[in-house]
């Protein structure tokens, strides 16, 4: 192969694998190779081109199982092929391919009657990330009991915790994945949903939260103190009662989502 360096060959081959016979240098590439078996040159290249689509589609299907379920095989495979050609993989790890798939679904909006696909895909990516995250050590109940009432307290959430909100009820959709259905999925999905996803004892749990609860967890997660967070929550949600606040904090400690508690001298509220 005098006419192509390894670098040039690899560039032309990569383009041919994704773009086929329309790619730059395709005839030149064909001239450099001998097809295997009784294949023709284009057929031999197509074996590899098909392999790329199949492997990346499998990877997307594994991560976005519920999107696949909602779309059905034919539409999901077409969407996947479109995405693969528009956003080639740059990751070395096949299972990490597809991070941009949720945004892609929002952008192309392939099915007007399924506006939740982007949110659903975003939920599945979040779930997958959590699956591969190690279990954190939770703060001990003894430490919680010993907290000073006069201190400014901030929580540091564990690494295996995710707060997720969506315009549509994608968790309800996700729970149904795999079930037989025809036409639209058999669940009321046209309302927003807020979720706490976390690992405890290496198992993944999902808690649905109302708007005020999620507001509090989000602020605490972002590093605001308890006092400032609660003040802000009561201002924003006047009906957020002491009982609900108490129940929320019981849940926070019961789930083990807090990895560390920072105590510092009390500071004036903003």
């Amino acid at each position, binding site marked *: *192969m*005098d006419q192509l360096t390894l670098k040039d060959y690899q560039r032309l081959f990569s383009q041919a694998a994704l773009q086929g016979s329309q790619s730059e240098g395709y005839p030149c590439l064909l001239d450099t190779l001998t097809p*295997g078996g*009784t*294949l023709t040159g284009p057929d031999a290249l197509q074996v590899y081109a098909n392999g790329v689509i199949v492997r990346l589609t499998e990877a997307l299907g594994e991560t976005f199982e519920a999107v696949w379920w909602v779309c059905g095989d034919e539409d999901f495979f077409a969407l996947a092929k479109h995405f693969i050609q528009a956003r*080639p993989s740059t990751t070395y790890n096949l299972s*990490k391919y597809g991070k941009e798939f949720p945004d892609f679904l929002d952008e192309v909006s392939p099915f007007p009657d399924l506006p939740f696909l982007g949110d659903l895909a975003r939920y599945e990516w979040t779930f997958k990330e959590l*699956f*591969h995250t190690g279990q954190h050590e939770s703060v001990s109940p003894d430490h919680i009991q010993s907290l000073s009432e006069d201190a400014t307290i901030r929580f540091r959430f564990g690494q295996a915790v995710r707060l997720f909100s969506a315009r549509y009820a994608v968790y309800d959709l996700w729970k149904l994945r795999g079930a037989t259905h025809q036409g639209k999925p058999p669940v009321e999905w046209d309302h927003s949903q807020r979720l706490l996803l976390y690992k405890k004892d290496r198992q993944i749990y999902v808690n649905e939260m109302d708007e005020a609860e999620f507001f509090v967890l989000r602020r605490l997660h972002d590093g605001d103190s308890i006092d400032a967070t609660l003040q802000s929550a009561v201002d924003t949600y006047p009906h957020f009662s002491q009982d609900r606040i108490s129940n929320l904090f019981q849940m926070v400690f019961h789930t083990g989502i807090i990895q560390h508690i920072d105590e510092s001298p009390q500071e004036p509220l903003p």
Partner: protein
Amino acid sequence: MLTTREDENFMTNSPIQHPMIGVGLRPTHYPYLNERPKTSVRWFEAISENYMDSEGRPLEMLEFIREDYPVALHGVSLSIASSEGLRPEYLQKLKRLVDRIQPFVVSDHLCWTGLQQTNLHDLLPFPFTNDARQTILTNIDRVQNTLGRQILLENVSTYLSFPDCPYTEWEFLTLIAQESGCRILLDVNNLYVNSQNHHFDPLTYLDAVPTELIGQVHLAGYTDMGTYLFDTHSKQVYPEVWRLFSHLIARAPEVPVLIEWDDDIPEFPRLEEEVQKAAHIWNSHHGSADAQRLSTAV
């Protein structure tokens, strides 16, 4: 170094004596293996990338298996023949995994897998030229220096080749191993697939590779697509591959052997039947006395 219970019960569970025949560790079999059944498998090979980016269940399972068995780490994304060089992040993550798992073998494929902006996630062919040879030697040097250990590289199945190259596949494979200090993971199925696709005698290939360079053997099944043989790892090992394996193992008794089955994966006991077939062939050449000697040497 992780200690393993395999040191205590090595060679005691199986009715057939053999040195080192293993299978690929696949998620399908996690629930079965989680019960710690007695198996006739001597070691497991794990796909490196499945564990490099996970601190979750997959890594927990690998460490669980590692408590009882030797483990080899086998990569699919090193891209040792890449003209762009290797990804530093990949090498660092692989090193962390190697340090954590302490595998007895670290391997990948003699191929490239795409470019950094268009990773094709396939084991891709390249011409056996001096250009490729220099690229690969530079890349192997970097990997072995980063990991601080020798690696093995596997011959891959291909569906096209390049005329007028200065080297045949077996000459190139041997040369790379000799010049880099790496060893060869000889996939007998891939060798057979290529012999049919590219019209050469598989025994010529097999006999040309010095056995002292072979650090591991893979066995798997292919699919006949009518116009070519396709390396699918979705079938049992075929008789023609068993015959080549027998020819090889007769002069390479100490080489660890792996049964690969990656698609349409059967129940674990079915995989063990393939292990038993390999063991029978091994025993037909070397017998149980050799097995006992080798088991203590591994």
